[in-house]
């Protein structure tokens, strides 16, 4: 029982990061139909920039802000320099562009930073908190609370602000949004910027637990993509549920079955779910007009 709870805690922590990556995917996908495989690189930038800024003597909160700014600028540049010029290209072409971008970002990160693994000190101590016989790291609470705060803030933004409503309108129907006077290019840029920020925050929060290096982005992007598809592409609630579910399953499988195949769980689950539910857990059944 204690052991089960322990695995649930660690699963939810990792799952929260997957959920944030999946949320970034969903945001960009809804606004532009682009699957952004560079999403994992935002997470990497968040962790790496913070690590190197802290090492240079910048206080942690400031370093974190700097990292978020770098990721936002990267997201905006990705949109402006690579996605916007290729408007109207096929889905596969756009996927290849974002993968090219992720190779480029990783290549640059390897030059600007280095190829080592880096850690950050935990934000508020390393002393585990005992809960019902299991222990949880304070940093895990930071991750969970941080992820919840982001989800809440994003929800408020989407539901309560004019700009958020413009994003939703663009996601629903780009042409109609433009007809009522929404600057859809601005909305698209905004989606890339926010996704960058969300990814960076995820990277900053998780780095004290999992370490970071220039290469952590790829697997995170793949798992985030799997999580987003698991929940049903384009559904923000699905993305969060999919991410948490994936993290939990991974942690339980690693604990009770085999830690060697921990990374396989995400992909076995996604294949299994898609075989039974071709639209994901929360996806709408697509109706094709003929």
């Amino acid at each position: 029982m204690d052991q089960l709870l322990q695995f649930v805690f660690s699963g939810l922590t990792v799952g929260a990061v997957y959920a944030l990556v999946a949320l970034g995917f969903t945001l960009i996908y809804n606004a532009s139909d682009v699957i952004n495989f560079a999403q994992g690189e935002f997470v990497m930038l968040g962790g790496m920039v913070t690590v190197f800024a802290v090492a240079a003597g910048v206080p942690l909160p400031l370093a974190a802000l700097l990292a978020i700014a770098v990721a936002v600028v990267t997201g905006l540049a990705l949109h402006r320099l690579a996605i916007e010029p290729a408007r109207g290209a096929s889905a596969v072409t756009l996927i290849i562009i974002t993968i090219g971008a992720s190779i480029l970002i990783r290549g640059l990160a390897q030059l600007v930073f280095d190829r080592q693994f880096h850690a950050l000190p935990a934000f508020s101590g390393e002393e585990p908190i005992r809960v019902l016989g299991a222990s949880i790291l304070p940093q895990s609470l930071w991750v969970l609370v941080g992820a919840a705060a982001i989800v809440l803030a994003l929800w408020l933004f989407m539901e309560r602000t004019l700009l958020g409503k413009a994003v939703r309108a663009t996601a629903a129907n780009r042409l109609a949004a433009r007809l009522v006077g929404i600057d859809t290019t601005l909305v698209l840029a905004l989606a890339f910027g926010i996704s960058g920020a969300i990814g960076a925050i995820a990277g900053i929060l998780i780095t004290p637990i999992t370490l970071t290096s220039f290469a952590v982005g790829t697997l995170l992007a793949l798992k985030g993509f799997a999580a987003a598809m698991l929940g049903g592409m384009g559904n923000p609630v699905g993305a969060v549920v999919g991410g948490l579910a994936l993290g939990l399953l991974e942690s339980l499988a690693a604990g009770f079955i085999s830690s060697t195949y921990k990374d396989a769980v995400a992909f076995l689950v996604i294949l299994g779910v898609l075989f039974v539910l071709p639209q994901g857990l929360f996806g709408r059944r697509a109706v094709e007009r003929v």
Partner: protein
Amino acid sequence: MAPEWLTPRRATVAGLALLLVALWLVFPSGFYFRIATLVWISALAAVGLNLLMGLAGQVSLGHAGFLGIGAYAVALGPRHLGLHLLPSLGLGLVLAGLLALAVGRPILRLRGHYLAVATLGLGILVWLVLVSEVAITGGPDGIQVQRLVLFGWRVAGAETWYWITGLMLVLGVLVALNLEESPTGRALRALHDSEVAAAVAGIDVARAKLAVFVIAAVYATLAGGLLALFNRFVTPQTADFLHSIELVTMVVIGGMGSCLGAVVGAAVLTILPQALTVFHDYEHAVLGLTIILFMIFLRQGIVPGLAALLARRAA
């Protein structure tokens, strides 16, 4: 005007065969033959993948998994089953075909991004098995492959492999072009445009998609086997996600739906990293940048792009 017997299909195959001879005449050293061999091998996989992507319009982000199966078949068959290399490769082809047959039906029901993530998952699972089963596969460090000996003839040297793989590619292109003109090929082209219309016209859509998926898998497996025999060493990298993406990029850069395009794309993506080694540390950054620029400025691919340019000149 081209004579009547010179159909585009025959011209493509003849052109490739001529290229093989011409390059053989001009190449000064083994290094060039080595690179060309790698191009032919990648091209073989890309030609198969192009049937799936270009002809049938179904994307696969996990195709390197099949290359991995082919490569590890020739590495592990002799070691663990005591088989000769060629029966090992044959076994790999059968296994990959059966795997494609088994997972193809549920996977190919999916559309668009769902198909992308499912194939991606399949490829990664193969890669994970190759990395994790250290006792059998040698794990991340890879494993040695025996030298191929055919009836007492030790197959060695870049030039020999240049011819073996080059002729396999010509054969592969010939088969692919014939398939495009076959009833299955026309069925695939029809379902590419509209699956509903194809089904209404009496095409068994699921069956046609499954057929091309298995064919593409077998092409990739064969390419993987040749790669392992040529390099005499395999690592799980053969099957990893980036390699899958490289294969897809070859098809798209060359021009989707163009058999020749797949060969050109394979040449670009094989030669480019060799050329980029002069950039040392900047290698990855430049590779990523090049891919982005190609996709933005030559969106329809090199071969169709050039063809359109020539047609405009001629008009």
